[in-house]
């Protein structure tokens, strides 16, 4: 008998009458949504690259624009570094919430979800501070004192759209946290919704890493 190749086995498995992915439809749907959302952010970043390449004015130096003064020393990107640290930490607390969810530990799941919500709120709060500061310094979507107008336009567009994702995530996680604490998932016998919310939250963090790299560092 001829031994079927591994590739053929994979294809046969995949095309069988079982669910294509061994997971609930809810989780599969979230993955597919995130793929689509990744294309949105991909398009945003590509469009930002196109606008930046075409801009005729000088492109402001991000480390100068986003510097904070501590006493008399200028620390470049200090706020952004803290924001990044906060958001990545929130991914850690989210992962803990998912783990405790698998252990059906209602209190700890709820606790770490709430902690994630708080860290997310901190991030949004710092972003509000950053926007306010820049607006006071004369940054507008249509002009800025440091150079090409596309700089401010891209900044407000990219961070604004990401910030909306974080805000939506905070509300989403808050609902999941309340449901977890009220024992809804205990009664269902299934904490999967925590994991699905976690997928979204990790994705939003991952997107921030790209924005951080391409907008603030480059």
């Amino acid at each position, binding site marked *: 008998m001829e031994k079927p190749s591994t590739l053929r086995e994979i294809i046969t498995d*995949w*095309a*069988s*009458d*079982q*669910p*294509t*992915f061994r997971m*609930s*439809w*809810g989780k*599969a*749907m979230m993955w*597919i*949504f995130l*793929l*689509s*959302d990744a*294309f*949105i952010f*991909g*398009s*945003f970043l590509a*469009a930002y690259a*196109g*606008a930046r*390449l*075409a*801009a*005729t*004015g000088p492109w402001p130096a991000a480390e100068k624009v986003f510097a904070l003064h501590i006493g008399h020393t200028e620390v470049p990107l200090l706020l952004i570094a803290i924001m990044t640290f906060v958001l990545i930490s929130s991914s850690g607390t989210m992962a803990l919430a998912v783990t405790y969810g698998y252990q059906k530990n209602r209190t700890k799941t709820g606790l770490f979800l709430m902690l994630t919500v708080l860290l997310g709120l901190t991030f949004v709060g710092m972003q509000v501070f950053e926007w306010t500061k820049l607006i006071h310094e004369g940054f507008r*979507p*249509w002009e800025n004192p440091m150079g*090409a*107008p*596309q700089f401010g*336009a891209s900044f407000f*567009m990219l961070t604004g*759209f990401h910030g909306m994702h974080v805000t939506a995530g905070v509300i989403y996680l808050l609902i999941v946290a309340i449901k977890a604490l009220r024992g809804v998932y205990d009664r269902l016998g299934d904490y999967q919704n925590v994991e699905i919310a976690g997928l979204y939250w990790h994705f939003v963090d991952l997107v921030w890493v790209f924005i951080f790299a391409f907008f603030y560092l480059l």
Partner: protein
Amino acid sequence: MPHAASHTTEEHHEPTGFWSRYIFSQDHKVIAIQYTITALVVGFVGLFLSWLMRLQLGFPGEFNFINPNNYLQFMTQHGMIMVVYLLTAILLGGFGNYLIPLMIGTRDMAFPFLNMLSYWIYLVSVILLLAAFFVPGGPTGAGWTLYPPQSVLPNASPGADWGIRLLILSLAVFVASGTMGGLNYVTTVLQLRTRGMTLMRMPLSVWGIFIASILALLAFPALFVGGVMLLLDSLFGTSFFIPVVNVLGQQLGREGGNPILFQHLFWYFGHPEVYIVILPAMGIVSDLLSTHARKPIFGYKAMVISIAAIAAIGFIVWAHHMFVSGMNPYFGFWFAIATVIIAIPSAVKTYNWLLTLWKGNLHLNTPMLFALGFVSTFIIGGLTGLFLGNVIADVPLHDTYFVTGHFHLVMGVSAIFGIFGGLYHWFPKAVGRMYSEALGKLHFWVTFVGSYLIFFPMFGEGFLGLPRRYFSFKGIESFSPIIHDLNVFITIVALAVGAAQLLFVFNLIWGAWKGRKAEANPWRATTLEWQTPTTPPPHGNWGAQLPVVHRWPYDYSLPDAPQDYIPQTTSQRS
């Protein structure tokens, strides 16, 4: 627990009130009909706008209410309505919703509530779209491609203030609705197939809709992003797409924008969009041809692979719409090659359709006629696409009526033929009554012959250099006098064909109201939707037990079989 068992045990409470049953229904069949009716109504607005354009082109100066401004507005809205709000909505929202759960043997979409939301959000986008006719300045007249800078600079094109903003808003809402729908269609096909329904036993209609939904999920983001940036340029005075512009010696306070960037974003969406409407139509036509020719589809596997190949290559050909945009000419080389490569899977599909018909027992009823019409217009439209895929031929032809003729035949008329065929084919199942075959055939012949009479002369006009998007050709003496006669002819035919669509509307309404009661399986078809316990299918589709699939959907005219079709639910042994 095996997934099939978990579905059967799922509880489906049938809603009883009028509102929850027919208006805010979460039943995929009701949502499908809501989508279909809404899309057809908007489609008739689009059709009416094309009449107004044709009146101006055929009889310039006779109709005083048409001026250059509103001519451009009619043209823009006609294009946008037909491509997005009619074709995309009816094929994914209408056929996708109706056929996917029935054809793969599930009770409903994965997430019925999101599905319902998708329809209502689509309705909001339609209202926003039509609202643009009532704001100061009217709807945008920048062409359906919305190219900046003229689409957003004040007074550069009609509707450059509120019209364009409303349209972008409407498109953003449509993208949200399309994403909700698309998530459901893709997830349902992947995760909720009934027992025995392997991927390679799915009818080609489901394949076409499935792949098109993936395309929608990956292509709409670029439209959304381009739209957001365009809206910022319009509302907040950013300069993403606006370079230094001089108007009457006055320099506008904008600089450094990149108008070509918008074209890239737009066509990164716009080209896959063409396949979003043609792939479901191709799938529907494949099923119609096989059923009404009483023959298995020829080369099923090749059909599936070519659908996937067209979709995949479709993402790397977008800049063939931009050969005259001023982008780097070296891009043209790559995009021309990729474009011509798409002809291969398209040709595979066309040959397979023809070979499915070969020596078949053709039943020339209305759905079959429309399917045959599709193959015909797709061939003519597709072959003229090869001209335009080549940079050197595209440059002189691009801004002429040759392009108008090409895309109307290949994705406008073809897609609508697939839709008409599908609507007639599944009407007995969805409504439980038959339409009038005689009226249907009359509708087909007028529309089919009329479409060629309208769009074929446009190829000639294009070769003669007649530019598209012009309000009037008065004062341009260099055009051959035949062009004016052709335009009069096209206009008269267009008015007649447009009016003939009322036959279709009348036929469906009359059929639903007074038509003969339909049998459960009037076409003697094999696929699951014809094997439901009642017609129209009940809420939850299948009664107590989900169907079990034993074979592929194209077992027609098997030798030694007792009848000329074997439903998918019949086991292999019997």
